[in-house]
């Protein structure tokens, strides 16, 4: 039923597929859930184009045929209506809508199946981290926290997932309502304070996918981006193990400058930004900070941008909770050491 549109002589309108930037566009799906949703969009689009073509054809015919011509003064026949016609244009839309409603109801229930996979025929229980991954995505003004309860990991801003694995996301919010959307992988669900929503998806291919907040949540709503990084199973395991138990050089770095940077980090940053499970969770977890592609969710990851962000976060991302560190709290030299230390927090090459 869902692929009924293939039978329609409208395949020339496939132009919709592939619009926009890869890994961002819902029109360029990179996984089964977004595929299912694009198929449904296309089915609805074809039915609607059929409607539009019929309406426009009658419309243009009528306007051309029955336009007033110069000198024409006849009074048209005053027609009351027509029962048969009324019946036809009541019944046909109902049939067209049923063609859409049935697959939609089926898909709506499929998308709601967010339970973890069941044990297989031999009674082998599925392994979290391999057969499926549960991620608790908590939205904050204006960043994303990704907890992996089974793997005891807390990550910020970037959500690592293994390819070809069922990903179950539980959505929560700490302040206002946000909404979690990865256009190329899965449609959105809202992060609502006091309620836990969930969704599932899979990413068959490795890649970096863009995620967005779609519910207005304050002045920096538009900057509340995140990334979904799909890697192969062994890379994911490496990442997960390191995140859960960071290596000694993260907490006790070698090298004079980095040692000083670590001390500054402990004095100023760790209350909000944890490394491993050590530290607070007011801001994003820093364990793999040097792997991040962006600073603050949107700036290119360079030392200059990081410096600017630490000095004046409010002007870059108004309304966020990060305090500014001006020269009186953090000298230029101290900032250099801090950034050098942060640059060592790297898990994946």
């Amino acid at each position, binding site marked *: 039923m869902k692929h009924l549109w293939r039978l329609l002589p409208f395949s020339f309108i496939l132009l919709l597929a592939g619009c926009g930037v890869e890994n961002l566009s819902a029109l360029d799906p990179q996984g089964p859930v977004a595929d299912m949703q694009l198929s449904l969009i296309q089915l609805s689009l074809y039915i609607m184009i059929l409607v539009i073509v019929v309406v426009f054809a009658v419309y243009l015919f009528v306007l051309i045929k029955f336009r007033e011509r110069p000198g024409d003064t006849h009074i048209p026949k005053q*027609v009351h209506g027509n029962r048969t016609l009324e019946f036809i244009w009541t019944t046909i839309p109902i049939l067209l809508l049923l063609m859409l409603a049935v697959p*939609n109801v089926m898909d709506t229930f499929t998308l709601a199946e967010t339970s973890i996979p069941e044990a297989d025929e031999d009674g082998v229980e599925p392994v979290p981290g391999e057969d499926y991954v549960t991620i608790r995505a908590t939205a904050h003004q204006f960043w994303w926290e990704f907890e992996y309860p089974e793997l005891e990991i807390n990550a910020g801003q970037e959500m690592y997932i293994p390819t070809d694995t069922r990903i179950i996301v539980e959505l929560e919010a700490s302040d206002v309502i946000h909404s979690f959307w990865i256009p190329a992988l899965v449609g959105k*669900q809202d992060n609502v304070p*006091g309620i836990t929503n969930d969704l599932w998806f899979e990413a068959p291919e490795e890649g970096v996918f863009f995620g967005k907040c779609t519910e207005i949540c304050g002045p920096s709503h538009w900057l509340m981006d995140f990334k979904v990084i799909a890697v192969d199973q062994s890379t994911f395991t490496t990442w997960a193990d390191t995140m859960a138990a960071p290596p000694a050089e993260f907490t006790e770095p070698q090298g004079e400058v980095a040692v000083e940077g670590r001390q500054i980090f402990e004095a100023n940053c760790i209350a909000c930004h944890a490394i491993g499970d050590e530290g607070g969770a007011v801001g994003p977890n820093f364990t793999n900070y040097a792997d991040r592609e962006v600073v603050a969710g949107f700036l290119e990851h360079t030392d200059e941008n990081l410096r600017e962000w630490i000095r004046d976060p409010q002007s870059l991302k108004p309304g966020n909770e990060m305090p500014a560190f001006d020269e009186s709290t953090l000298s230029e030299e101290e900032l250099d050491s801090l950034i050098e230390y942060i640059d060592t927090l790297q898990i994946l090459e």
Partner: protein
Amino acid sequence: MSNAKAQPKSVLWDWLTTVDHKKIGIMYMVAGLFFFALGGLEAILMRIQLMFPEFSFLGYQTYNEVLTMHGTTMIFLAAMPLLFGFMNFIVPLQIGARDVAFPFLNSLGFWLFLFGGLLLNVSWFTGGAPDAAWTAYVPLSSDSPGHGVDYYVLGLQVSGAGTLIGGINFLVTIINMRAPGMSMMRMPLFTWSTFVTSMLILFAFPALTIGLLLLMLDRIFGGAFFDVAAGGNVVIWQHLFWIFGHPEVYILILPAFGMFSEIIATFAKKRLFGYSAMVFATLIIGFLGFMVWAHHMFTVGMGPVANAIFAVATMAIAVPTGIKIFNWLLTLWGGRIKFTVANLFALAFIPSFTMGGVTGVMLATSAANYQFHDTYFVVAHFHYVIIGGVVFGIFAGMFYWWPKMFGYRLDETLGKIFFWLFLIGFHLTFFVQHFLGLMGMPRRVASFLDGQGLNEMNLISTIGAFMMGVAFIILVITLIVSRKNTDNVDDPWDGRTLEWATPSPVPEYNFAQTPLVRELDALWHEKYEGDGKMKAAEPLDDIHMPNGSILPIFISLGLTVASFGLIYSTHVITVIGLLITFGAMFVRSIKEDHGYHIPVSEIKRGKGER
């Protein structure tokens, strides 16, 4: 019985105290056009901000305020009052009445709307407008710092009371005040749609009132209805808001449907095809409008059962809407179609609204809605419906009824320039936004990053918005320079309904003798089957008229003062404001006012109707 007509007064006093439905209608139009210009300016500011990636023309906080005020202004202070203007002016004429059922309440409704709208806009000058979008979802709105959202809550509460009063007034008027012979099934479609819209107002606005009340209690009196930490629930607001908000869409579009039905029939010189089907389709749309509110909340986590039910219920609305589209097409079929500006807008509505309608069905597809929701696809959809439906309706109605309302015809040449610029600008602005949404652009973003493939279409959209802005300026020029066209204004379009049986400008008593209605399209019937004049249903006699009153302004002013007291938690002022309001109500209750009579001699002098 007092026969003394009040002494001649100044023009200003006359307008401030009037209870004449025609003057109130004109005041609704003027205020509505003012707020429409304001909301349009806000739209232009937003489009300038979104012209280029990472462009900060307004600042993100200010952008959110402009965004909130654009939506709130356009819905509550522009579209509704403009429609109320037509409903006020036209409906009593169409049913052959001398006025609405409650002229005093009619005036009160207008002044409440105006004071509420002005109150809302005062926030610009007192430290920031509301910034939580027109939907004001909690907890963003309940936690919003400053007083912006307080202005939203009280401004909408005051103006909403005015709307509710207006709705009740129209219901009573249409049920009770129809001329002899005008059965319900002989009412013009615009009157029918006003009737159904008024029912929607009656049932929808209380939900908004309660939502706003709860939000006010949370923000101003430390309540915790929406405070999750104290056991509150934030989704309740969304239900209350959309139980109002979805019918609100039909409150806006149904009167426009009514206008198109009149205008298309007039300029095709044909009776409306399938009149009774059109009436029932209107009623069904009004009924289903209350059954589908949760389709705005598919992603909030209601579960697949609720989502599936609301998806199917929403799709069902496409059926009566489709019936209407085909009936309009068949009204045109076999007609003699005249392309006046009024009809151009009505004709442009059919394809534009069809496009907005089909994207509505796409949005109703719940599983696909997870992709559409809160993106620019939604922005494109509702602008196609609201501009392609409601705004086109308002412009069509303006060009159609302007001679009746203001006594001069709007210039057709300038009007056509306006029409084409507006139409092209509109499609340029909003067509590309369908794609922007699916390509990953959420709505209500204060800017967008470079390198996401969104640059070109945003620029196109802004260019379209500028065209619409220029078009609006041409409209304003048209309204001014057309004033010399005062000839042929009584019945310039060979109208079908009763309002065209009155002279322009319409005398204050509308009809010297209440007309006798013998057929649907009463005037057309008399012109083509009878002797061209409406039959009178009563002998010529003195006409009893209500006196004007300044009290509605005081009642509204008192509530506005009380609102300031609430916003700034200075409850002495709240009490003073309420005393003004209740004092004015008390004066109204004890003061005897029997109105006055217009003597037959004066009616004969002014009797110009055919």
